[in-house]
């Protein structure tokens, strides 16, 4: 397919201007305000009075070119061939003509959902899972699918107190945005790496492997004269960092891998400063293909939030107002020793005041 003879490198991505709708090019930087016309449909009005319409639809993110070509065809048909993707993997069609909105939505709804704007649950930031990553303790695409099947009504409506951002990551590397999401699902290994002493000496640099452990659980050792490592199992907290640097230390354990559920993170600076996500449920066993315990748990949290939070309260802000004791109370989630932090700054999470609810 390539026709040039000279090999081109370091050319970078094409200039974005060529992909901008003429209406956008004209009003670039001159937008005045936006409106959410209905779930999944935005209008942006420029100083000039021009209006560009956006129709937002769900994408599973893991797609085939078949799915992709459906999107490009619709863009060509209704949006002068202009489309974009969002930072959360939805697809957006950019329409100059308001009349195209309804027909476009009609066609979109044949194979996906339109929504994800405003006070909704938009698309889930997620990762590779069993589809592509060696490190995963669970699947990502599958979890997204089952959770969003359960919550799709919140994608196509805007009836929540505020936006709820979900994330899924399949291991502690957290390639999804688990550490700062309203609700997050995190794949967890729960047993120490099983060392393959036969391949380790060839595959891994021992000092790097030893240094990789955040908790100094790895020590050099030798077995039958070959240099290898051993793991102090009492110190291992199953983070997988050793496996990242040393393939001979896999953590995968079908019996014990699973997911944990996290709540209350937030990125925007609106009202409160950004917040980290905190542990809600330490462990739910993997139960593919539909992980019913996980979808139940997430749905429960969403519903308790929907019922109790005030308008404009994100999950973390809501919990901030009612307090953690009440969060556990209302959701019926059990508070355990695993919720007590024991890492670097654990002390800063202890309750150092009398301000408490009973």
């Amino acid at each position, binding site marked *: 397919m390539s026709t040039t003879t000279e090999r081109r490198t370091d050319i970078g991505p094409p200039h974005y201007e060529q992909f901008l709708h003429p209406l956008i090019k004209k009003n670039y930087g001159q937008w005045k305000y936006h409106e959410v016309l209905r779930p999944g449909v935005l209008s942006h009005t420029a100083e000039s009075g021009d209006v560009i319409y956006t129709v937002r639809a769900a994408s599973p993110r893991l797609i085939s070119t078949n799915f992709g070509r459906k999107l*490009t065809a619709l863009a060509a048909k209704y949006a002068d061939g202009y489309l*974009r*993707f969002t930072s959360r993997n939805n697809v957006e069609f950019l329409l100059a003509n308001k009349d195209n909105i309804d027909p476009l939505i009609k066609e979109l709804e044949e194979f996906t959902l339109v929504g994800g704007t405003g006070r909704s649950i938009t698309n889930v930031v997620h990762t590779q899972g069993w589809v592509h990553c060696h490190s995963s303790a669970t699947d990502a695409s599958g979890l997204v699918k089952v959770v969003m099947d359960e919550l799709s009504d919140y994608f196509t409506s805007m009836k929540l107190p505020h936006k709820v951002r979900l994330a899924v990551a399949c291991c502690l590397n957290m390639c999804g945005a688990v550490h700062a999401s309203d609700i997050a699902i995190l794949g967890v290994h729960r047993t120490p790496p099983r060392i393959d002493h036969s391949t380790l000496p060839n595959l891994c640099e021992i000092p790097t492997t030893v240094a990789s452990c955040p908790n100094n659980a790895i020590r050099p050792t030798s077995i039958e004269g070959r240099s290898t490592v051993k793991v102090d199992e009492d110190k291992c907290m199953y*983070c997988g960092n050793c496996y990242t640097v040393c393939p001979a230390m896999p953590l995968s354990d079908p019996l014990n891998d699973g997911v944990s559920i996290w709540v209350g993170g937030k990125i925007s*600076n609106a009202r409160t400063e950004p917040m980290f996500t905190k542990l809600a449920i330490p462990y739910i066993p993997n139960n593919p293909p539909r992980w019913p315990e996980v979808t139940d748990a997430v749905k429960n949290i969403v519903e308790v939030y929907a019922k109790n939070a005030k308008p404009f309260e994100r999950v973390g802000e809501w919990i901030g107002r009612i307090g953690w004791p009440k969060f556990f109370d209302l959701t019926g989630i059990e508070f355990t020793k695993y919720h007590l932090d024991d890492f670097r700054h654990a002390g800063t999470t202890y309750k150092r005041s009398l301000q408490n609810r009973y």
Partner: protein
Amino acid sequence: MSDDLKTPLLDELEKGAWPSFVKDLKSMADKKPMVKDLLGQLEKSYADKRGYWKHGGLVGVMGYGGGVIGRYSALPDEFPGVSHFHTMRVNQPSGWFYTSDALNELFDIWDEHGSGLLNVHGSTGDLVFLGTVTDELEPTFRALTAKNWDLGGSGSDLRTPSCCVGPARCENACYDTLALSYDLTHNYQDELHRPMFNYKYKIKMSGCPNDCTAAIARSDMGIIGIWKDDIQVDQAAFAEYIDSEMDIQGSVVDKCPTGCISVEGKEIKIDNSNCVKCMHCINTLPKALRVGKERGAAITLGAKAPIVEGALFGSVMIPFMDMSNFEDMHDLIDRIWEFWDEHGKNRERIGECIERIGLATFLEGIGLDPVPQMVKQPRDNPYIFYEEYFEEEEEA
């Protein structure tokens, strides 16, 4: 694998309202044996509750150290189609804007050279070509560059910068996120393609403190739009909100984190000297309120996922930077990388490096003065390393 693909477990994921990746992948499986085998291996993962991928190997395209993630099946005999199954990270255009034509060309390339599966997009921002064999890496790359596309980052390099929709379609944009993203990506092609850092370095650009790219949580360097002067008010538009059904007191006034909004009659008053630019009032009253006119960006450093010291948010390194040209930004980035290069450890990201070395030392190193905007609070411990002291000769 056997010809007729049986995936009873995965089939369960064809049900439900959310678009099904299984359905979509299956639509590819007949054309592409590697997709069939991918589904086969995935079905086995679902049955056995474990992944079947081996640890990545070092593969790539000529002259580049990044952009490709090597991946091999642990069951190559059972699923030969995915015995190699590498991903290629195609550097997305600023703001993830495309035309149908451009995307179709990319699809053509991938249909020809790979699995025809993609992630649109990867968490860092790339358009991820998901799965091909080693031999196809170079031809894919040639096909891409022929159409003016290039690969993004992976490994210990500058990762593919990404930015929000910004001035292209957002009234809140305080600087041109698309232009800066383009500029940085092109200016640092070498750093992007040839890993030579201690570890990865991600740059994310959001046009305002709503931070729609999650820069403060997911980028070593966040460049987040901000303004310095007063929020622009259209009192007439505000009066319309007052006349509407909206609960201005509950939804806006009471929600301002610093209590600096008040309403007198149909007029809104903002004590801008106490406004912390949280965006809430602007978000809630988009027709009446606009970000100020003196615009620029704040620079945050150090966000990352938890491995190994716990997750970090970025911390403010420059509270306000003019963005009318990008020269100062190049200069700043160069100084930061120089410092990190000299003082950072292997696999230590910039945020961890700053925490280890100390903010004061880091600032000295890159030539910035300390300002109170950099901290949530001054130190509360008395362990001060005094550096200036009196010698015998001097007067105290």
